[in-house]
């Protein structure tokens, strides 16, 4: 008996999983940026600039990851 080849379905499943995962992650990164900008307005301290910078770096990486999950074959 010859088993059917599921590898094609598996790849599609992995792509959907990667797309949904990175999408959720991107939403999370946007929430971080928004919360950080709001909290730095509430609390003004020496390292606020650095915290904002890292939140935007994080957002950029999340966008990059999302693009990777779409572009990669």
């Amino acid at each position, binding site marked *: 008996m010859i088993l059917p080849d599921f590898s094609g379905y598996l*790849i599609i499943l*992995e792509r959907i999983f*990667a797309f949904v*995962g*990175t999408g959720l*992650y991107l939403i*999370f*990164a946007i*929430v*971080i940026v928004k*919360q*950080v900008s*709001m*909290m730095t*307005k*509430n*609390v*003004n*301290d*020496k*390292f606020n600039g650095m*915290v904002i910078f*890292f*939140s935007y770096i*994080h957002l950029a*990486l*999340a966008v990059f*990851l999302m693009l*990777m*999950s779409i572009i*990669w*074959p």
Partner: protein
Amino acid sequence: MTRAKDLDTVAPDDVITGTNPSVLVETKTSPLDRGEEKPIVKLPNNQKNRSKTPKDVVDENMAAFRQKVYDVLGKTSHPLSSFLVKPSVFKFREQDDLEEIILVMRPHWFTNVSWILTAIFMLFVPTIARFLPVWSGVPLMYQMLGILFWYMITLAFVLENFLSWYFDVYIITDERVVDIEFKNLLDKKFAEAKITMIQDVSSRVAGISQTMLNYGDVRIQTAAEIPEICFEKVPNPDKVIKVLQMMRQEEEQEAIDGRVR
């Protein structure tokens, strides 16, 4: 003729004796009738060269008292410390123009150790995963994507924990205590109470790490709308209690002096 300034209470035939020289004025006829300038009030010599007013003395006393508060607190060792005494840069949105920040606290640095260790472990997870048989079945490009995704989750974990610590701020100003909490990115809390509204202050240092490193919870019972403000896991709880006690005394003195803002 020498006359008293306030003549409404003096009968015409009363003899004026023993009057304070500071309130005497020299007039012969009414200055207004003659179109002259206002009469000159003669002040005693001891008041002319006066250097300190009662207000200056009170201000000096308050400054000395405030210095005692700072002496109790000591000095801040570095800008990322959990115990910032009179920070030069720090401000918060609800702060008044004349309000002075005396102490800013965050949870003790030791509270960060657990998530830092977890993050270090998370960095090594992809290396460990290579030895799992399931991993070899995944296509290479998805392996790369998975590793990248995992490191992003690690970064998010670090960022979230750091932000929760960084924005979890307890402030003591000369007017009030403020609690700003920022937990799990979606939970934000702001609570404040006037120092005059503080009723009881208590602290709790429990466990080995808290006893060894001298940090713990400070609970402030208030008569305000928010019945209790808790400074969680802050360094030097004994100093915090002492300072709050001194600030309450200062506020009481201000109320007696009528200098309440």
